[in-house]
């Protein structure tokens, strides 16, 4: 089991920037740290081997170790205020949509510490209850009727200090005959509850502990025992804020992209939203007539909390590196070692301003984050059936299986079965490491995926003597086209699947302003995502409508809360990948890779430069470290109907895939036979070249496995040759025609 884990505050930097490293060291009193440059992270004995170079920096050396933990679970924290602390009589209410009512005690609206205060909770029976205490004694009064999962209830309680009477209610909004889940109970307390001086919480107790799974909408606190009519009135989306009895009326539909829970009452008891629960979620009053929360935010007044949400692990910094000018652009990592344990914390260094090379490689770090800490081998979908090979688990898989507090990936579900729609890098991402193998990497091979697979590209560029600058998706998102402008050629990683609008626009600008783009992967530019406008290192995804989906966004929740844009496939935004790079996701399989065969287009004189040194009948990439071939894992095809430009050359196509390769869902409208690659002609990868305005050009390989074939035969092979032919020609600024 892993005992050494860590992350950094920054994923990318430039010389002069400072990176903070945060380390959890559980089993040793100290660890040894070195900054290393990562060239190749593949441990496969049949490959080029691990290549890393120690960089002499002041942080290299022994550091004291200490355990650091993660407190997962999302909630809202409202600082204590006198108006809350002086409450004697009170009422609390919220609309709730519980997803795990049988989980045990869960906090809804709690102001509880030192055995005093109040807490509206879901109790052990799954019913709403009110807990009160005076510091010496406490009690719980429950409705005693379990709520049903994924159904809306109006729940609350009131306490009258004069009579010491208490009432708790639970009202299903859509009652069902035969389901006894409505009720009101009353009780008289023998003591007078006293208020705590601690914060007010929604969805948890302090800690967080007893985190609620499900949606909470329109929480309210009032300073007297309300009538039934008043409870209904105060629960409406926009209650009159100056009703004298309202202490707090929170509106989660306000500023949905933020981490603030806005209180519309004059008290302005705004809360801090912690660990990014899902916002822009349909509320109790969503009618289904509107799909876009921007049209009527009041119908999206719910926050969906989860007991395994995590944004920032919040670890203390153990050491920090100020990047010296001597560290040229590249992939680096803090390599940590302690008594048999090893951990890498990767980061990139870009060039100092004005010292850019002519080639840039943009690491698809949004996709690293999307897959970060996946539990594909132990949870969720049936990966073995999909892959048609046994699942192979590695140490990160086993660790993450038992440490859900490290959070899941965008391929996982929360503990309540809802899809994880945010991923943060402010936590250890244990598969975004050199030397790591992943579940989806093909059979018997290097089994690399994302970060480590992309080191095959870095290694090839290094071996072939190309100087490059390394960037990240995150940097591209925030900088836009200006990041790419200095470069003659921009390269992608092997699987740049997740793309923000800003990233997409930057690539488009590059192509249309005379830049050249080499798309060296498969299943790229597939999902739209959003980076948070203010909070670093977190992305949002809505798995809307269609696509290869590990889970499906709920109806009415297709719009991204971070930027208000319609989420889902770029295909559904009128920007199919074929429009940007000539090819788009067509099929996937995870057993064996195959090869390409040249098409007639490849023999045209205009593209002769691509195949210089490649025989007419040569199979391209019938070798490689990823599944044994260059065409494998996830494949993209050209298609004029999807936007492949009419001037595109379809140079080669893959063939002879196994029947474990299936079309992606959006490739067919009706179910039917012949969906696998051994029968369906659209289940293939296409090798494509086309010119873009102002002497720009695009070359696309349409396969994740391509990069794994670059190093075969000491880099002397037709995949390497084609890639180098294109790269050298792309560096020549002369027009193609």
């Amino acid at each position, binding site marked *: 089991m892993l005992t050494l884990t860590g992350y950094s505050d920054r994923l990318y930097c430039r010389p002069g920037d400072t990176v903070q490293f945060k380390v959890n060291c559980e089993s040793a009193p100290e660890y040894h740290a070195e900054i290393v440059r990562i060239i190749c992270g593949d*441990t*496969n*004995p049949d490959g080029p081997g691990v290549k890393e170079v120690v960089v002499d920096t002041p942080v290299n050396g022994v550091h004291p170790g200490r355990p650091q933990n993660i407190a997962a679970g999302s909630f809202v924290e409202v600082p204590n205020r006198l108006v809350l602390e002086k409450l004697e009589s009170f009422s609390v209410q919220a609309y709730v949509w519980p997803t795990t009512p049988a989980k045990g005690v869960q906090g809804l609206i709690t102001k509880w510490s030192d055995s005093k205060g109040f807490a509206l909770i879901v109790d052990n029976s799954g019913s709403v209850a009110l807990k009160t205490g005076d510091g010496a004694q406490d009690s719980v009064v429950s409705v005693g009727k379990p709520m049903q999962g994924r159904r809306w209830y109006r729940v609350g309680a009131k306490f009258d200090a004069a009579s010491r009477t208490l009432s708790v209610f639970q009202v299903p909004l859509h009652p069902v005959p035969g389901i006894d889940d409505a009720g009101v109970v009353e009780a008289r307390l023998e003591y007078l509850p006293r208020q705590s001086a601690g914060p007010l919480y929604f969805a948890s107790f302090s800690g967080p502990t007893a985190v609620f799974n499900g949606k909470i909408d329109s929480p309210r606190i009032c300073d007297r025992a309300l009538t039934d009519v008043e409870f209904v009135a105060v629960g409406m989306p926009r209650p009159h804020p100056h009703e004298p009895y309202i202490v707090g009326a929170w509106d989660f539909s306000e500023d949905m992209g933020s981490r603030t829970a806005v209180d519309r009452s004059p008290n302005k008891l705004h809360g801090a939203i912690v660990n990014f629960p899902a916002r822009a979620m349909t509320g109790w009053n969503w009618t289904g007539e509107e799909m876009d929360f921007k049209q009527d935010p009041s119908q999206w007044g719910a926050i969906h909390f989860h007991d395994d949400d995590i944004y920032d692990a919040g670890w203390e910094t153990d050491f920090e590196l100020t990047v010296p000018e001597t560290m040229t652009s590249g992939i680096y990592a803090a390599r940590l070692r302690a008594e048999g344990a090893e951990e890498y914390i990767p980061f990139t260094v870009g060039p100092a301003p004005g010292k850019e090379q002519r080639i840039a490689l943009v690491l698809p770090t949004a996709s690293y984050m999307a897959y970060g800490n996946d539990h594909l*081998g*132990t*949870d969720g*979908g*049936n990966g*073995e*059936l*999909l892959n*048609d*090979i*046994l*699942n*192979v*688990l*590695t140490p990160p898989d*086993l660790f993450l*299986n*038992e440490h*859900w507090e490290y959070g899941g990936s965008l391929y996982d579900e929360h*503990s309540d079965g809802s899809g994880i729609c945010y991923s943060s890098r402010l936590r250890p991402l244990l598969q975004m490491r050199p*030397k790591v*193998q992943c579940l989806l990497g093909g*059979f*018997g091979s290097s089994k690399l995926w994302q970060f480590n697979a992309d080191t095959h590209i870095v290694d090839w560029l290094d071996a072939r003597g190309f100087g490059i600058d390394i960037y990240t998706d995150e940097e591209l998102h925030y900088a836009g086209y200006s990041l790419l402008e200095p470069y003659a050629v921009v390269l992608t990683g092997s699987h740049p699947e997740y793309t923000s609008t800003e990233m997409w626009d930057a690539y488009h600008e590059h192509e249309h302003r005379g830049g050249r783009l080499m798309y060296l992967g498969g299943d790229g530019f597939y999902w739209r995502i959003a980076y948070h406008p203010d909070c670093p290192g977190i992305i949002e995804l809505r798995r809307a409508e269609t696509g290869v989906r590990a889970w499906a966004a709920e109806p009415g929740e297709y719009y991204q809360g971070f930027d208000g844009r319609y989420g889902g496939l770029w295909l559904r935004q009128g920007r199919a990948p074929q429009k940007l790079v000539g090819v788009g996701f067509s099929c996937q399989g995870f*057993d*064996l890779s195959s090869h390409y065969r040249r098409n007639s287009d490849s023999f045209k004189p205009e593209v002769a430069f691509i195949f210089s040194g490649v025989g007419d009948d040569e199979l391209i990439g019938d070798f490689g470290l990823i599944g044994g071939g260059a065409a494998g894992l996830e494949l993209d095809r050209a298609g004029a109907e999807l936007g492949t430009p009419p001037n595109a050359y379809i140079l080669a196509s893959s063939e*002879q895939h*196994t*029947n474990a390769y299936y079309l992606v869902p959006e490739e067919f409208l009706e179910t039917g036979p012949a969906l696998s690659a*051994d029968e369906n002609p659209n289940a293939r990868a296409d090798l494509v070249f086309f010119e873009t305005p102002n002497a720009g050009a695009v070359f696309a390989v349409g396969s994740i496995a391509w990069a794994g074939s670059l190093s075969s035969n000491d880099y002397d092979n037709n995949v390497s040759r084609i890639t180098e032919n294109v790269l050298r020609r792309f560096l020549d600024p002369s027009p193609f025609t």
Partner: protein
Amino acid sequence: MTQSTYRIDPVKDLPYAREFMATPVGLHSPGLQRVLNVLRGEPLAGKYVLIEITPHKRWRLARLTGERGQPVPVLDTVFTDLETAEREVFMLRWKDHVGQDLVLA
């Protein structure tokens, strides 16, 4: 994720078992894939997996619990190549499904 309710016939499906033993990974006949859809589609509770104990060299057999967060119990069987592991697990599952050992002869 899809799953299969096909019932493996120990006589009619025996040729497909032989096909698997000859080529456990790769392009399968429709008949073999129908069998594999059953065997590979078992639920997570009790599902066989491999745990890599020496990268690229040694793998240990284990079975998932199907319960989120629970450790993965490991078995004693260790493999030194993945195709042998595929064959072994195929035979274990075959016996579970048809009630008798897989006899290829």
